[in-house]
């Protein structure tokens, strides 16, 4: 992979550094997004069973 750029004899080190950074950060972002979805799905499931936070319940007055 050179994307049309000549990065000299050490191009492999440069591309490896950028490649690993992109992969690791993409993994972190994916983990955070999936974790958020999991928690929201659990909250929705609990709400469907009638288990809600006090602030989410309709006022009795």
């Amino acid at each position, binding site marked *: 992979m050179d994307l049309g750029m000549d990065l000299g004899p*050490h191009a492999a080190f440069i591309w490896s550094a950028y490649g690993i950074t992109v992969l690791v950060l993409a993994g972190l972002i994916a983990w955070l997004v999936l974790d958020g979805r999991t*928690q929201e799905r659990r909250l929705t499931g609990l709400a469907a069973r009638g288990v809600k936070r006090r602030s989410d319940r309709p006022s009795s007055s």
Partner: protein
Amino acid sequence: MQTVAQRLANPTRFMDLSSRVLPWVAGVAAATIGYGLYLSFFVAPPDYQQGETVRIMFIHVPSAWLAMWGYMLIAVSSFGLLVFRHPLADVSAKAAAPIGAVFTFLALVTGSLWGRPTWGTYWVWDARLTSVLILFFLYLGLIALRSSIEDETLAGKLTAVLALVGIVMLPIIKFSVEWGNTLHQPASILRAGGPSIDPSILTPLLVMALGFTVMFGALHLKAMRNEILRRRVKALQMAEVERAQAGRLAAAE
């Protein structure tokens, strides 16, 4: 008059505000990093000594800065938990740990890949590299300690104490290049007398550092939101169990 920290002490208010702010922060981070990458590959010239490998600096240095700033954030949050008992301080500390660990890992790996063509070796056990490796293990230790304790409140307090003790690593890392023998170059940006890097290379570096910092902010906000949701799920699950037990007791009577 309430301070910003006091106003954000309410998790519900934090969730409302962060849901509106997060897309903008993420967008600014993506745009800044995109511009930084353009400058890094198409504008910045090769270094007169290091040649093209200087381009690794544009990701290595921001990662290394965020490795330390991430730990500083954990330490400040831990202080906020132990001293002010701020409701979101523990959430902030817990959320920042894996993100800080990731940036420390990236600083180590990209530094190693930069070191091979520059120094002729991937690794040396000198003060700078070893102290950053210890910081990485410290992050892992914080994560492991917290996950090994069931009681969330106790886990938060014990982790906060360890985080505050571990802050001693930050000045050691910062000054390790001046105190001991090292292959690592001394500070060339945050130094007395101003940066010693040519503006043609300094500008892409600062743009990438800004982009990475804003990205760290976006990741931290998202991780804090996840942690608040996780705690709500846990509280509701416990309430559900208690309600079921109360129902069984009532039926038995």
